């Protein structure tokens, strides 16, 4: 007998006969194993950032700075959907899996663009989608895994798309939802929840990768009596937000996962006096048990909506002639953080602003704890302006790292700022719980005298010095791919271009105008020795919101068309 939160659907087990002709023409499916996830082949893109260390880097180099100008589209596929198409195409030996807004998954022959199957999730009528997007699927065995916007985890047959099981992770009616690609390691499939604007209590949960049985659940806000609980007054811990809405990194040596956490709720820090652990932090969770092994909080008692949800890139770097087993995090708070990871500890190394930031006055040289200019910290009934804006120096779009050139590539936004004031808000389950008062022009402004917003920055992780910056008048919402061809691929601007940059100096070497703006994560893969670049074009969510506000403050009406298309590029034969 099935219980209410855990249902096994058996239909898919009997469906081998119903494979589409396209699937039958493909090679046998190559099951994804732990070994393959830990050492992914360069020909594939098996997970959100390509590898557990979140580098977003490929050793493929057929496409390189010498020939990238010849890159051409080889096939495309319209998803038929609007809003933010942010997921990377996940590729396994010719099988491509692309998730979309509204929780569709499209399985495609990666060579030809022919569709193999399509999963369509029927969403509840009373669902609210604050972020109508999805950021990718995960693969394991012969399964595909999807975290849904109505807070379910779904396991599907990779060959047929039939649902094998699905598990309710939390109740969407209370504001929980998911947009991240699941993380699979140590026999678990792990997900975190969104809903920080809706009065949730954030967590990461793990399930048995084959059966879906719950394995562990670790909250990002400690309950009374637990370490860190003293940083939440009264009952604020129950509705304090701290979501986890991006895929974590994983260190197989320590068997530890690293997750970024969002801000506390309501947004104004004076509603929850204290540091609010483990908000705006990186948390280290044991993959087997979920035990919180360590944390580093980037800034305390957030009042700026500066989620720090991007998982840190696991990078070993040089400092004072020594190799630091490290982590690097371009923060939404505008600082580039270098940390050291030990089995049960995270140490601060150094940090510096990578965009204009006017809130932090000092950092403690040992702990990295910032002090604030309190005139820049909004509160209930207290309006304050601050830079960078609530979308930060870098929002969710992931950075990438080339381990050969030692350069970290950051998709940044500079020179945009916010004005916020808090107002009292009553908690009601599943309802907005931000407590932000309306502000003129949406509380958004561009710093006077500045000429650009978007940037692609390159930083040498060993010297801590910036190598180059390429600027754009537009805002930048482009996830980054780095390759051994000395290239960086990124879209993100409101002119609909997808671009290839010379990784040595930031020069634009190639660009293709697409149907919409690109906020999708680019990937690369190869088939029969031929390299491909794949990305989704489909503007929406916060990129569109920022465009609305830019139009307002600039008195413009710049239009970015919506609608998703998967694009695949290659060199001519």
């Amino acid at each position, binding site marked *: 007998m099935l219980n209410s939160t855990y249902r096994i659907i058996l239909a898919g087990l009997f469906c081998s006969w119903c494979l589409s002709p396209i699937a039958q023409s493909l090679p046998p499916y190559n099951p994804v194993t732990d070994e393959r996830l830990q050492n992914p082949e360069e020909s594939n893109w098996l997970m959100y950032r390509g590898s557990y260390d979140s580098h977003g880097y490929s050793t493929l180099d057929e496409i390189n700075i010498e020939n990238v100008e010849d890159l051409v589209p080889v096939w495309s596929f319209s998803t038929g959907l609007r809003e933010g198409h942010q997921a990377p195409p996940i590729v396994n030996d010719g099988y491509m899996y692309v998730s979309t807004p509204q929780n569709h998954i499209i399985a495609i022959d990666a060579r030809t663009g022919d569709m193999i199957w399509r999963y369509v999730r029927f969403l*509840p*009528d009373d*669902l*609210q*989608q604050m972020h109508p997007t999805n950021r990718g699927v995960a693969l394991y065995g012969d399964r595909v895994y999807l975290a*849904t916007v*109505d807070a379910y985890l779904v396991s599907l047959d990779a060959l047929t798309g039939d649902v094998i099981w699905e598990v309710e992770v939390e109740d969407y009616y209370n504001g929980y939802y998911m947009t991240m690609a699941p993380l699979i390691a140590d026999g678990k499939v792990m997900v975190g929840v969104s809903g920080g604007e809706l009065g949730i209590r954030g967590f990461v949960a793990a399930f048995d990768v084959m059966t879906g049985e719950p394995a562990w659940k670790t909250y990002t806000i400690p309950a009374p009596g637990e370490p860190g609980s003293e940083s939440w007054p009264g009952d604020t811990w129950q509705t304090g937000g701290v979501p986890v809405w991006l895929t974590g990194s994983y260190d197989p040596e320590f068997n530890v996962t690293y997750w970024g956490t969002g801000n506390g709720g309501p947004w104004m820090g004076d509603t929850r006096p204290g540091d609010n652990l483990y908000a705006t932090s990186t948390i280290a969770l044991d993959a087997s048990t979920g035990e919180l092994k360590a944390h580093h909080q980037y800034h305390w008692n957030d009042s700026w909506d500066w989620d720090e949800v991007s998982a840190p890139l696991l990078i070993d770097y040089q400092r004072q002639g020594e190799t630091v087993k490290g982590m690097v995090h371009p923060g939404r708070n505008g600082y580039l953080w270098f940390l050291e990871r030990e089995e049960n500890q995270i140490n601060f190394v150094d940090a510096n602003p990578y965009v204009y930031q006017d809130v932090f006055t000092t950092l403690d040289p040992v702990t990295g704890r910032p002090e604030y200019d309190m005139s820049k910290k909004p509160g209930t009934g207290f309006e304050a302006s601050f830079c960078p804006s609530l979308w930060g120096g870098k929002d969710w779009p992931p950075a990438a790292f080339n381990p050969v050139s030692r350069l970290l590539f950051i998709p940044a936004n500079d020179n945009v700022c916010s004005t916020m004031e808090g107002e009292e808000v009553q908690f009601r389950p599943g309802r*907005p719980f*931000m407590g932000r008062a309306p502000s003129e022009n949406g509380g958004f402004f561009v710093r006077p005298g500045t000429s650009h917003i978007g940037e692609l920055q390159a930083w040498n992780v060993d010297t801590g010095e910036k190598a180059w910056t390429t600027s754009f008048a537009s805002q930048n919402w482009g996830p980054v791919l780095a390759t051994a061809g000395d290239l960086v691929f990124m879209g993100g601007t409101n002119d609909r271009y997808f671009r290839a940059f010379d990784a040595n100096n930031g020069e634009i070497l190639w660009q293709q105008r697409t149907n919409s703006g690109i906020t999708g994560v680019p990937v690369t893969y190869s088939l029969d020795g031929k390299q491909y670049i794949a990305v989704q074009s489909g503007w*929406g969510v916060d990129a569109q919101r920022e465009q609305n506000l830019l139009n307002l403050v600039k008195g413009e009406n710049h239009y970015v068309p919506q609608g998703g298309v998967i694009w695949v590029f290659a060199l001519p034969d």
Partner: protein
Amino acid sequence: MSFGKDKKALLSRRTIFKAGLVSGMAMPIPMTVLGQAPNQMRPQQGDQLVFDEGDRIGELIGIDMLELDQQPVSALARDPETETIRDGSRLNRVMIMRLDGQKLSSRFQANAAEGIVAYSAVCTHTGCDVINWDEGLLRMACPCHESQFDVYDGAKNVGGPAPRPLAMLPLEIVDGIVTVAGIFKGRVGFTQNF
């Protein structure tokens, strides 16, 4: 496929409908026997509206309690006989306000009661709560994706990504109380496309 709160109610309805087919029945089935709890039912004709927020939460909304062109307030329908407040679905919520009835678009005046109008609180874009208010332009606004709705023109979408106006709940005044005069005009909430 997934089943949310309302889907569970729909399942019951579907099961009963199938049972009816099997037994040869083809007559319409009243909502009250479909297994849907009264608090989940959409506002019904004759329901009274009550405040859903603030100091007067749960209190009946009288004709004189709303000021002209002020920020809409959240309200729910209440069955006057059983005093059941229909708070079982977020799709039941409305935002209620008093407008200048003479300026309200003529095609929507029949749904207003002495200048008081009620629109669904659920955005037609992705289902967020439309709780913001532009007091200068007299527009309801969604905090999620900046959609804006002209309250004097049937909550027509005039900015942002919302594809349709907000559904409108017809009103009348009965014994000084703002009362529901009919079912929603227009579809409540977002539409999933495939």
